[in-house]
Structure formats: structure tokens, C-alpha cells
């Protein structure tokens, strides 16, 4: 099977280029398996990966035009039975490239940290658990499972334009995770922190985030819900 891969090493290359590789593949192989075979041929290719099962979030990349995790993307998902076709792999878009498929996610992490992604609870009783009904707990299903792979934020045009000001879908999903946690006491503070034209409201419901999330989460809906909470909060 043919692969066309984005290559750039700042030590030797003036500008990025696409390089073609051909490797033997099997039908049950994931993109990560093919990348490992390519790296055996050409050890200079750099990419991130770790758990190989879609839970660590290391290997987000742009595969045939869509942001995906290489370890859970089957070759057959991309090309069906046509194993003779070419797969194109690029780094996550919109972020500075460090080398090859490795991007600098500093801004992405900065936005994540900016939403105070930790439980803020006052007056905790120390020796027992907070009670939370199954229904209350269910409200954070679909929000807490994020693996910070950055597939969503780096597919978002609003984030491409304003990665320094717009929090982006991943960070906002995280904000929603705490806003919807019955144990959290900082709702007003969290909403106030999201006021203004950029942090939350740069989202134009383009929905790329939801379409690409490899965990099937829905940041777009979470952002919509925060906007509704914001209206109530402001009034």
C-alpha cells in the first residue's frame, strides 16, 4: 500500500515536503501499524504514539484530510477493500510543526489549563465521599472521557484563527465537565471566566470537533449547553 507522508526536519529542511512510501499491509492493520513499518524502512520519520488502543491520545494526526488517532483507524475504514490506493498523512493542522507528524501543542494545553480543569468544592467533609446520585453522575458522561488528543481543537477554524484567545472545543468540553458536575461549587466563577467575545463565543457551531472526536464525544453540544448556561448566568 502507498503512503504519502508530510516530512519536515528543521535541522535539514528549508520547507516541508511530502514523501512517498510503500509497505506491505494486512486487512486488519491500523494506520499506526503501517507507520511502524514505514519507520523500520526510514527511522528518520517521527510521530508520537504510546498505548496503541485509543486511550492515551498521543497519536492524533490528519489522515486523508480528517483528524484521527492512528492506532484505532483501520486501513480498511479509509479505503475499503482498495488496498492499492494511497493514504495521505499530515500533522494536526493549524499548530506549529516541530518535526514530521509531531506538532507543538503548547497553545492547546494552555487553553486547557485556562478553564481551571479541576474540581472546585468548598466545605468538603474529609472522611466520606460526596454523595452523587446516578442521575447527577450521568450528566458528566460524554464529557469526562476526553483524552486530550487535540483532534477536535485542531480541526476547528475558529481555533486556527484565534488559538490564543478562543479556548477551543477540547478546553470547553472540559469546562462543561466541571460545570455539569454536581460536586463542583464554582459555576458562577467558571461562567464569568468564559465571558467576552472570544473564549466561548468564537464557536460558530461548525461541528468539525464533534465529527472528528475519536471517542465519540460531542464538544459542539457541550459548548451550546454552556452558552445556554451563560445566558441564564448573565440575566
Amino acid at each position, binding site marked *: 500500500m502507498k503512503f504519502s507522508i508530510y516530512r519536515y526536519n528543521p535541522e535539514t529542511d528549508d520547507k516541508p515536503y511530502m514523501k512517498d512510501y510503500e509497505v506491505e499491509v494486512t486487512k486488519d492493520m491500523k494506520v499506526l501499524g503501517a507507520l511502524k513499518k514505514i519507520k523500520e524502512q526510514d527511522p528518520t520519520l517521527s510521530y508520537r504514539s504510546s498505548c496503541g488502543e485509543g486511550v492515551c491520545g*498521543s497519536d492524533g494526526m490528519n489522515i486523508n484530510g480528517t483528524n484521527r488517532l492512528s492506532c484505532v483507524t483501520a486501513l480498511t475504514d479509509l479505503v475499503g477493500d482498495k488496498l492499492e490506493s494511497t493514504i495521505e498523512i499530515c500533522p494536526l493542522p493549524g499548530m506549529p510543526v516541530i518535526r514530521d507528524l509531531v506538532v507543538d501543542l503548547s497553545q492547546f494545553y494552555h487553553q486547557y489549563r485556562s478553564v481551571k480543569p479541576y474540581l472546585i468544592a468548598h466545605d468538603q467533609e474529609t472522611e466520606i465521599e460526596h454523595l452523587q446520585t446516578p442521575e447527577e453522575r450521568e450528566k458528566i458522561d460524554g464529557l469526562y472521557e476526553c483524552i486530550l488528543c487535540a483532534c477536535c481543537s485542531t480541526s476547528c477554524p475558529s481555533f486556527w484563527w484565534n488559538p490564543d484567545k478562543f479556548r477551543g472545543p477540547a478546553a470547553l468540553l472540559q469546562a462543561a465537565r466541571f460545570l455539569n458536575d454536581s460536586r463542583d461549587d464554582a459555576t458562577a466563577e467558571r461562567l464569568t471566566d468564559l465571558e467576552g467575545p472570544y473564549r466561548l463565543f468564537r464557536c460558530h457551531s461548525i461541528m468539525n470537533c464533534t465529527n472528528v472526536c475519536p471517542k465519540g464525544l460531542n464538544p459542539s453540544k457541550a459548548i451550546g449547553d454552556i452558552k445556554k448556561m451563560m445566558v441564564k448566568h448573565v440575566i
Partner: protein
Amino acid sequence: MTIPIRKFDSLVIGAGGGGLRAALQLAKADAKVAVVSKVFPTRSHTVAAQGGVNAALANVMPDNWHWHMYDTIKGSDYLADQDAVEYMCRAASHLVYELEHSGVPFSRLDNGKIYQRPFGGQSQNFGGAQAARTCAAADRTGHAILHSLYQQNISAKTHFFDEFYAIDLIKDKEGVVLGALVLEIETGEPMIIEAKTTLLATGGVGRIYRTNTNAQINTGDGMGMALRAGIPLQDMEFFQFHPTGIAGKGMLITEGVRGEGGYLVNKDGERFMERYAPNAKDLASRDVVSRAIYLEVKEGRGCGPNGDHVMLKLDHLGADVIKSRLPGIRDMSRTFMNVDPIEESIPIYPTAHYTMGGIPTNRFGQVVVPTDHAGEEPVTGLYAVGECACVSVHGANRLGGNSLLDIVVFGRAAGNHIIDYLKNNRYHKPICEESVENAMKRLSRWEDTSEGESIDQLRADLQRDMEEHCGVFRTKEILEEGVKKIQAIKARMVNARLKDHSKVFNTARVEALELENLVEVALATVHSACAREESRGAHSRVDFPDRDDQKWMKHSLFFMEEERMDYKPVRTKPLTVDTFPPKARVY
């Protein structure tokens, strides 16, 4: 060349649950703490833990820490140190409540309390009916805990060096540990981190085996660093093979599936665990279940065209239970096997999972080494917690749900001990140039641009040899040959070369450094296994099928220098309660 230096009170190497829990304790005590991690913290392998964390909260049925202690010691096949086990099981409830307070989204019972599920090897009343002790956030408990701990560290303003790779410890002539030499992966530049204490929390080493549940990063880096610093590794022959890995691929399917009521069947549709463990059945200890699966397949009762696996049946649990309690493994089965467990059984086979052995420590997380007079003493300034360490609370076989507990209990204990140490040791000791030079040699050795063997080939050979010579069932002949083979790979390492010598984000260089650690730890593992002539827990010797408490109720210690073995006694005296004396272990 001058190497940049950063100074902190305390250095933590590894950002999984153990490292982050310790860092949190330190940051909250206003210590200046640096966490070095070769991946962004939430990519650490704690994230992949599924089933849960054990604590006798008694939310579902009666339970207490003493029963948990008994189960853990029985599970360990009486090799665990009973003082450390008592400490862990007593602390468990407090630590789980603390996790809950820090935001972990545990699943809930109707009364609002933390959901608990039954897990393997758990009993009420010292070997009675099945207990339900494992606190779970669906089947993503590790993810939930790791993210919450990272988030709390953001709040506590812990300093992170993300994507920095630790090369070696820096010691002075007296053996005091002064920090570490690290490599910034993005730039390829070395840096010295000076610290009054250094904590190793680098996780396990499942990557010495070909089929394993571990992430690529689980390469035993801290264990390798300890060995090179002259510190032995303890009980390395005890490697846990998890019964339910996805057949042929190795991804983990949580024991929680069996806790929720799933069970194993062979090709005749027989629930075969009833024969091997009449009481506990599918919830016997992991070593017991793994051996049973291996024997079923060996005796021709395996499933599939090649008869090389068995099936994990859970479709009878119903769609609701699977979707709410086991959503992660449903995803994984669909992604990797095209099997939806709501409708079909999952093909499974035992797979290398957990390193019971590791860097020897006491229950304060201090690394300890033998003295000349048959005792042991702490290495000043050096700590280790979690899978890279051996306290030992898991002995010869770890119980499911005890690893997440281990990391938070001993992460916190080490943090507390370090805080005390810092109060009495206010100044940094001078850095030792010779130690830095030795560590730098480990890096510069890979600058050699001549032709040589490839890292990929050596790693593949290592993993194949370990699988063939140090697997579930072992004999003297197989192990002796294994020792020779791993020694041969170590000899070949001298001629290994990199093809890519660039500096910026050179993952090939990191993989070469990781392979050096894998080889050293594999050698420790196969040597320790060869020396232990008995069967205990996960170490199954066909030629010595029985446990031999008279001769072998002791911990192994492997030293890199001269590939030497030594032993030390098991601490059988708990802190306050009576000793659990060794008994025949039946489930």
C-alpha cells in the same frame, strides 16, 4: 560542554498516578517539585487501567480492611511484606475518598455512594463469600484517576517538564542521589535537574514481551537507571500474565467483565474455571486463571480454527449493563476484533501485563539496599513508587484493583516522607562531575555514525526470546537457554547503531535508550526466574511444581554487576495485627 542546570527541592521522574500523587503531596506542602515525563502526563500508562481501585468501603456489602489484607497476602502467595500490606489496606478507604474529593467521576450506587464491583481474589471474612471491593468509574478508572491527579497538580502549580527523557541518576561518592540527567526530546539537548530527593515512578516493563497489554512507553526506564546505579531489582521473576487479553493482539479486557458476571468458555462451551477453582470460579486470582486458559488450549479445548484461544462470554449481561459499566471494552472489542460483546463473546488469551517486582523500597517509598551485615538501609535521596518499585505489596501475584491503590497509597507516603526529609536537609549537596560524565556517556555512545545492528531487530529478538523462555510455564532448561539468549542480545547491543543522528524530536534515539533499559530488566527477569526453584504465584516451574516455604519464602535481589543474585527475608510481621502464616492457596 556546559550542561544547563535547574534546581528543585524534589524531582519526580514519571507522571503516572504514583508520580503525580507524590508530586501533589509535595506541591501542596510548598516544596519546589519538578515532574519529568517522557510523554505529556495524561498519556502515562495509568490512563489505560480499566476495572478499578480496591478499598473496603463496604458500600455494597460488608467489608473491612483486614479482609482486604488477608486477600492481598493470599493473592501474593505469601511473598508480600505484611507490614506494607497492612499499611496499604488500612489507608485504602481514605485514599479513595480523597480521589473522589479531587474530582474522580466514580460510578454511583442508587444511594449516591461510590459504585463497587467484585474482582478476582476478593473475599469476605478471610476466605468466605465473594466481596465487592473495587471502586470503579465505569471501565475507565485509570483514565479518571490520572486526569484528576494531573488536574489537581495544575491547581497546585507543580512544575512539569513534559517530553523530557531521564537518562541516569546523578550520585556523589557517598552514594547520595543528587538528581538526574535528562534529555529534552524536542531539542535533543541534555539538562541536569538537581534535587535534594529524586523519586522514580516510571512504571512497569511489559514491553520485554512480544504480546502485552502495555503501552510503548513501558520500558522499565527507572528500573534500568536503578540497576546502573548499583541498586538491585527485587522479585523480577514474578511477571503477571493477565488472563483476558484480546487474542493475538494483547489489548486488555478488564477483569471487571468477570466481576460484572462474564465468564470464560472453551470450545465445548464449558465454563471450565469451575474445574480449576470450584469456589471463586472465574474470579480466582489472575495467575490461576491464566494457567487454566493456557492448559485448556494446550489440551486441545481452545476455540477458533487454530484452537489457540478461549472465549469471554458477556452477552448475557444485557446491553444496559455493558453500555453503562463496560463501555470502554465494548469500544475496544469493536475496534480491534469487530466483535460487539452485546451480541458475541470476545476471543481472549493471557498476555503479559504487570511487573510485580521492581526497585526495592520500604513502605515510606525509600529505596533500600542490602548492607554488609545482612540488614538493609535506605539510599539517601532516592525514592521509588508504583509499578517500578517493589514494596512489596503484590508479592508473587498482584490482585486486580490493587495497582491503582498501590500508586496512590505509596505516592502519598513517599511524598510525606520526602517533606520530612526536606525539613532536615535544607541545602543541595554539590553535584558530582564524574557521575554527570558517566550519564553523558550513555547519550554520546549513540553519536557513533558507523554501521551497526538496528534497534528494531534487537527489540524484536528480545521480545521473542522472553516470550519463549520466560512465559507462563517455565523449566530449568528453558530458562537457562533464556539467560544465554538475553546475554547474547546484551552483547549485540554494543554494536547497535542509530541511522538518524538528528537532534530535534528524534524518537529513534529515545527508542534506543529505552531498549538499553529493556535488555537490562529482561536479563534481571530471566536470571531471577532461573534461580527460583519452586512454583509461587505467577512463577510456575514445571520442574518444581510446589511452593517451598522452607527454602524460598524470601525475596530475590538481582544485581547488574556480575549478574549476581542475593536474597532477603519476607517481612511477615504486620504493623498491628497478627501474621497471616502461609497456607495452601485454593480458590
